[in-house]
């Protein structure tokens, strides 16, 4: 059987799958649409809950790929699936004995939630913007000032019928807690408020970090969804919510409003499903064969999944799926 395995997407899941497949004697080829391997993690500064620099995960993976001599095609955007692989934009077909889809997720576009004024008001940001600012080493308001009051809003683009998303993006609560702590470290005198609907701390060390955010970093957690934001005359942001724990409306003015944006299914998923005979789940992510023994299988012969293409996952889970899919593909190929 053909030992070549087509890996669509060179994020952490794709890189880990390629490394594990190579070890098992397969010949993986990674198709990455950007110019560099790394996926979404390239834009991230530090990782929850340990504040590990993203580079400490990315660099060993990239080095491993280079050392193993794994074929990488960058700038290779996959349009759809073919009989035994993928069709690139421009029409080139890359084929092998199996295909692993590791194309990840899309970040929710915060402009859709117009009531929060992202892209309209000066001082409304997203968690992605904040990571970029951390990477640049400078966080400031649009006016160039030091923020004295920062509000984070959880669940933007998740758990919201209004944007057609019933699902919870799972990793954003802990991201919000992590960024709140990082902000407090940068601006010790700033007041920080996290507005949440539920706090979902699913991973090891997450709840503990939440507790430290409360106790040691004095982050204020207010249960209530911000209903709207408006810009004040001096360019700050006034927000309104209900403090549901006391049953009263609440309002305040902040220097920065950070929208904790969720994960959506990848924009290519429909094309993959149409061309490969696969199923897109109701939440927009790809539907694996089942949630247990077939969680990296697609149900179609020779097509597999790893990482956030099938659901929101953290980095560790995506890395594990890279290994898991390699085992499944190897046995499929008889390696």
């Amino acid at each position, binding site marked *: 059987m053909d030992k070549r395995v087509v890996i669509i997407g060179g994020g952490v899941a794709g890189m880990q799958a390629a490394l594990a497949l190579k070890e098992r004697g397969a010949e993986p080829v990674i198709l990455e649409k950007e110019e560099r391997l790394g996926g979404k993690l390239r834009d991230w500064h530090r990782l929850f809950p340990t504040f590990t620099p993203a580079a400490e995960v990315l660099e060993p993976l990239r080095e491993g790929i280079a050392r193993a001599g794994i074929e990488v095609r960058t700038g290779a955007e996959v349009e759809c699936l073919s009989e035994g692989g993928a069709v690139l934009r421009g029409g080139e077909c890359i084929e092998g004995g199996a295909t692993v889809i590791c194309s990840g997720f899309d970040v929710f576009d915060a402009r859709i939630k117009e009531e929060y004024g992202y892209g309209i008001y000066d001082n409304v940001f997203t968690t992605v913007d904040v990571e970029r600012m951390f990477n640049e080493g400078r966080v400031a308001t649009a006016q160039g000032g030091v923020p004295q009051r920062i509000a984070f809003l959880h669940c933007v683009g998740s758990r919201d019928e209004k944007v057609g998303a019933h699902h919870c993006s799972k990793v954003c609560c802990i991201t919000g807690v992590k960024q709140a702590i990082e902000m407090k470290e940068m601006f010790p005198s700033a007041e920080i408020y996290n507005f949440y609907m539920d*706090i979902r701390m699913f991973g090891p060390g997450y709840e503990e970090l939440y*507790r430290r955010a*409360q*106790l040691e970093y*004095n982050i*204020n957690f207010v*249960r209530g969804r911000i209903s709207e934001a408006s810009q004040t005359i001096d360019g700050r942001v006034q927000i*309104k919510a209900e*403090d549901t*724990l*006391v*049953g*009263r*409306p*609440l*309002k*305040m*003015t902040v220097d920065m409003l950070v929208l904790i944006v969720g994960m959506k299914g990848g924009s290519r998923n429909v094309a993959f499903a149409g061309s490969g005979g696969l199923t897109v789940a109701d939440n927009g992510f790809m539907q694996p064969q089942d949630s247990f023994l077939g969680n990296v299988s697609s149900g179609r012969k020779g097509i597999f999944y790893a990482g956030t293409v099938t659901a929101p996952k953290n980095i560790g889970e995506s890395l594990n799926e890279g290994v898991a899919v390699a085992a499944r593909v190897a046995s499929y190929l008889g390696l």
Partner: protein
Amino acid sequence: MPQFGFSISKPRAINLDTNDQVPAERLLQEVPELKTCIACGGCTATCTAGNLTDFNFRKMHTLVRRGEYREVYEQMDKCMLCGKCRLVCPRGINTRAVVIKIKRVLGDY
């Protein structure tokens, strides 16, 4: 004076731009672990006073932390300092101390 049947309602919103946070900060200095409250309501559920009157201990200490002190001092008089709430708090908060310190920091209100 004829009554026309209308009145002016006081704004109900908690305004964090104008509220005086000093007593709240003093309370949290005295009982720092209160910051870890997850609003589970265990304290309120077990509270004898809360089962017999409209006293809601969780709501009271949350209001104080938002800088809302009106009526809280009087409400706290309903507490009998029995300490049952402390036995159930999953965050290990010394809730009985919270009662006493609220009375102390709000003495001026």
